């Protein structure tokens, strides 16, 4: 009896000591999935300082970690890796699920995303938010500490049986222990609106037809455009037809058979030479509303509402099954051209094929693989056509119109799936890419999909000889958030939040690109003040992005301190952004036709303070790196790429400018009033890591100059267009007259209608040229939303830069390129 009391007293003391120790020694794993990780990283820096709780010891190896903070979206492709890392952590271990995506899938109810990490690993603490602020994560940690104090670990530790420690909660199963029905309990058997069973777009579509809008914008051809058009018509006759109407650029419809000749002609022979393949994508035309009545499609649909809608169609335009879209850019005349060609599909599988253009532009490789992956279109002559974004075991082609986009409509992703679907073996994948083994004595090293220095979920498979990289294969798609599919589902305004998340460090810059596309299409005039405000936000985000880049680049090279300095400055910038927009990472502040609100009181003082302090601080921090001999040894002459290669691989942004070309959309194809500001386009010639560093640092100085000018000359006037057909009206006006109130009601509920047409909107975001190609069928949401991202093109050239260098150099190159995964995988 007494012995029992003694024992339990000892136990309770031991419990307390152990719990106390664990509580203050929670080492998190260096693990991040997407946006939330940026806020997680901020927690470690000066303002929030997680170190106070003894939890700053980020361990890159799961073996040494106690805490897994699942920060960001859990993709079906990465979920097996998450599970494996969790299982590699020794007991006891805890899990914090950070952010809505990790908690429940959040706003990404879409085919590639697991609807909550608790379906594959147990979770102790959920931190809500999208993304949660750093303070929220701090609170999550404190809650976890409290939870740890309630555990009884002593019996476990001394092998006495019983006791509790670590995560004891079960893994949940969709439909059994959890439900993702957004309407709450009590609705089983009732169809959810917005799913493929009850498509929201059809209903809204019919209503959209009741709304009248003017025709889409009609672009006037410039002289050089007209010349090229004439040349094409002369050379190819009826095989190349000038599109009847275009909102943004010279557009040609070309026969499939002469496509390659046309592209070759435009690249090498026409009066304006289009040297860069800007974008390559496809459109599935099978659901066009004005398509000629399609008997097969109509009879194939079993569901009543959808079939009715399809069969009632009026005979109209004769769309092909697929349209391939090639978009080229000419540097000398600063203009673009779009080439479209129709493809007919055969059989029930809807097989279509066309010739590959990889021999004209090497960068077409990934673009064509993406089209194959997303649409199932084959490319004859492609060297290694296999899936790019989706894993090899994936069934179906997500961007086809008959593919249901929602994850909640598919079988739930379970623990067993995560066990089964481990990423493909590196050697196997390398063989797939190179059409045969690349030498049997090579040592294959997997860097990623989850690695400290890949800046996200990128997988590099390096064939090594010693530490030298002999071959490098990339596998992407671990961060595929299906933004393009979402664009076809969300209404025009609802899509804005998704654009932020397309590049979580560039915030409003991407909203800006998107708004530009829609505004070009519908010919919406943006007031001057709104234009200037957009420039202000874009430049603030450029600064904030480049600061993060500088921090991570230095960190990749082993210098830990610049991180903390630049993040401190970044907080200052985010404060200004927060003052103006109310948000930090994802401002969601741009609206079609303007912005969400006017500048608040006190914005000028805040901006002025920033511009006064920033240049001095930047020079101070830069001293740590610019002339540091180790830094120079690690970056000079490393990862060199020639201007020629950079152009043919479609590299944009600072990475292109570091090769010696002063090409910046803000200067060369000005938009939103950039022509009114004085600034330079910094360049360097070497094209190596050091050159990329110099260019970005100088860009920060130029951005500050622009911000200064914008703040000084901020025009007065409206912050949103008067054309309320397309905008969410200003509140004070909405409350005054009934017309505006109606516009408000329509645009907020079912969303506005954008006229039939297509347009490409692009801006210079921190990473390069980020564009949205919006195709409208005259409905409340896009028919096709293509995202042309700079990262996709930039990273594709990584093997070119890194082959022959060492592993350490590879890390340096990735760091210097400023990659971010959501914009690569989209």
């Amino acid at each position, binding site marked *: 009896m007494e012995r029992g009391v003694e024992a339990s007293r000892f136990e309770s003391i031991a419990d307390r000591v152990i719990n106390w120790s664990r509580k203050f020694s929670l080492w998190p794993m260096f693990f991040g999935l997407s946006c939330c990780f940026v806020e997680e990283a901020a927690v470690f820096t000066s303002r929030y300082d997680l170190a106070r709780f003894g939890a700053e010891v980020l361990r890159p190896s799961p073996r040494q970690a106690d805490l897994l903070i699942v920060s960001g979206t859990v993709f079906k492709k990465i979920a097996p890796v998450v599970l494996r890392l969790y299982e590699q952590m020794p007991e*006891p271990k805890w899990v914090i699920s950070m952010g809505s995506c990790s908690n429940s899938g959040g706003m990404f109810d879409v085919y590639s995303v697991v609807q909550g990490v608790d379906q594959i690993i147990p979770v102790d603490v959920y931190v809500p938010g999208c993304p949660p602020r750093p303070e929220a994560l701090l609170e999550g940690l404190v809650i976890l500490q409290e939870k740890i104090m309630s555990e009884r670990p002593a019996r476990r530790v001394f092998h006495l049986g019983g006791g509790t420690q670590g995560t004891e909660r079960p893994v949940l199963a969709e439909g059994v222990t959890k439900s993702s029905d957004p309407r709450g309990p009590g609705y089983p058997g009732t169809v959810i609106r917005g799913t493929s069973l009850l498509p929201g777009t059809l209903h809204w579509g019919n209503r959209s037809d009741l709304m009248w809008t003017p025709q889409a914008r009609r672009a006037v051809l410039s002289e050089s455009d007209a010349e090229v058009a004439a040349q094409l018509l002369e050379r190819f006759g009826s095989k190349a037809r000038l599109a009847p109407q275009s909102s943004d650029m010279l557009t040609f419809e070309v026969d499939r058979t002469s496509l390659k000749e046309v592209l070759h002609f435009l690249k090498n022979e026409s009066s304006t030479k289009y040297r860069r393949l800007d974008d390559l994508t496809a459109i599935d035309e099978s659901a066009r509303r004005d398509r000629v009545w399609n008997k097969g499609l109509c009879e194939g649909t079993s569901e009543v509402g959808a079939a009715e809608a399809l069969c009632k169609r009026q005979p109209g335009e004769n769309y092909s099954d697929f349209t391939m879209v090639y978009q080229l850019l000419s540097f000398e005349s600063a203009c673009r051209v779009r080439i479209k060609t129709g493809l007919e599909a055969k059989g029930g599988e809807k097989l279509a094929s066309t010739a590959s253009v990889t021999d004209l532009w090497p960068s077409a490789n990934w673009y064509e693989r993406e089209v194959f992956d997303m649409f199932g279109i084959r490319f004859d002559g492609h060297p290694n056509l296999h899936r790019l974004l989706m894993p090899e075991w994936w069934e179906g082609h997500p961007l086809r119109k008959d593919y249901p986009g929602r994850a909640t409509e598919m079988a739930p992703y379970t623990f067993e799936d995560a066990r089964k679907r481990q990423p493909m073996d590196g050697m196997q994948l390398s063989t797939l890419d190179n059409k045969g083994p690349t030498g049997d004595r090579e040592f294959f090293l997997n860097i990623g999909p989850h690695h400290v220095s890949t800046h996200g979920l990128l997988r590099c498979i390096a064939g090594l000889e010693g530490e030298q990289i002999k071959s490098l294969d990339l596998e992407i798609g671990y961060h595929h958030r299906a933004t393009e599919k979402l664009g076809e589902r969300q209404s025009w305004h609802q899509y804005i939040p998704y654009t932020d998340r397309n590049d979580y460090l560039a915030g409003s810059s991407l909203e800006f690109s998107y708004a530009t596309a829609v505004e070009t299409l519908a010919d919406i005039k943006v007031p001057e003040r709104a234009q200037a405000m957009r420039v202000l936000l874009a430049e603030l985000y450029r600064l904030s992005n480049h600061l993060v880049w500088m921090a991570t680049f230095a960190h990749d090279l*082993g*210098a830990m*301190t610049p991180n903390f300095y630049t993040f401190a400055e970044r907080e200052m910038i985010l404060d200004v952004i927060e003052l103006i927009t109310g948000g930090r990472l994802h401002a969601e502040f741009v609206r079609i036709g303007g912005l969400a609100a006017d500048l608040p009181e006190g914005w000028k003082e805040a901006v002025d303070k920033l511009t006064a302090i920033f240049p001095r601080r930047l020079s101070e921090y830069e001293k740590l790196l610019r002339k540091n001999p180790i830094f120079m040894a*690690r970056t000079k002459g490393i990862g060199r790429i020639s201007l020629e290669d950079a152009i043919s691989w479609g590299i944009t942004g600072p990475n292109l400018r570091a090769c010696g070309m002063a090409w910046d959309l803000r200067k060369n194809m000005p938009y939103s009033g950039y022509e009114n500001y004085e600034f330079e386009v910094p360049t360097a010639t070497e094209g190596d890591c050091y050159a990329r560093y110099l260019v970005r640092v100088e860009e920060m100085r130029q951005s500050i100059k622009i911000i200064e000018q914008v703040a000084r000359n901020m025009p007065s006037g409206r912050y949103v267009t008067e054309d309320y057909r397309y905008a969410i009206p200003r509140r004070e006006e909405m409350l005054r007259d009934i017309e505006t109130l109606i516009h408000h009601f329509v645009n907020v509920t079912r969303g506005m209608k954008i006229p039939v047409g297509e347009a490409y909107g692009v801006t210079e975001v921190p990473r390069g040229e980020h564009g949205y190609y919006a195709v409208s069928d005259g409905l409340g949401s896009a028919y096709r939303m293509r995202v042309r991202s700079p990262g996709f093109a930039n990273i594709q050239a990584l093997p070119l830069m890194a082959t022959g260098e060492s592993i350490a150099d590879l890390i340096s190159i990735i760091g210097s390129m400023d990659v971010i995964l959501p914009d690569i995988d989209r």
Partner: protein
Amino acid sequence: MLNMLLWIAGFIILLVKLMIILGVLLFFAGYLVWVERKFLARLQIRYGPNRAGPYGLLQPLADIVKMLVKEDTVPDGADRAFFLIAPAVVAATAILMFSVVPFGKDLTLWGQKVPLVVTDLNIGLLFVFAMSSLGVYGVALGGWASNSKYGLLGGIRGAAQMISYELPLGLSLVPIVMMAHSFSMVKIVAAQQKYPFILFQPLAFMIFAISSMAESKRIPFDLPEAENELVAGYHTEYSGMRFGLFFLGEYVHIMVFGAIMSVLFLGGWRGPFLPPVVWLLIKILAVALFMIWVRGTLPRLRYDQLMALGWKVLIPLALINILATGAVGLMIN
């Protein structure tokens, strides 16, 4: 009989000394982690640990208890015996090095002379190098036995780096031996009665400082564990206290090199006003803080650059330094 008693007394004194030194050493190594975390935090405009006890002073305790009660995993396919023994090799060799470091003048207890050093080997310096070389086995074997590619790469890097930097480390000390006419650490301290050797041998000091940072695998030479490249390098697969031992080994290494640097260049335990042991600790701490500061400032070298620095710069410099010292010595005598 008296001999027997004296022998027993001597043995007891030795045991007590061992216990004290081991305790103090581990205590300071643990607190060096705290110092590092606090000092780095200050460099980075942060507070650092401050919740576990006042000023976070109980932080090392929390970490050690946590690591001790953490699951100890051995990966599938690992070479079990080597995997388990490797961390101990690293920690033990680091601790053993301290046994030849003198930390004060001889003490007289009950008429008995008690030297304030565990053992005054007449080849003290060589012993340090021998132990330091043995430490390589821990790193290389640990990395190799883990059956992990990152571990293996880290182990290879570690072996190559540590062997390469042994040479400049040893060569940089030859002039000291020449000046002190002895390998014994005690005699070397004695030789610095008037002036510390750093005044005569700044180059040797520099080479030694750089090489010892490389030996203890600190930034800018932390390639064997470079987390940005190799996840955690040779200790990628280690968990719990075994990982803790690697960690501890590293910090003991810093202490030892701090101590050796103080003994060889900074006059050892000599200094005004304060007791000798305190002086030695201050000097060790100064060296450690310098290393932490370097870690907070510099990026990491690349593998081949590291090798180039060792073989093409430090070794020739050290050789020249030996020649110069010899020449000057000849001229003076």
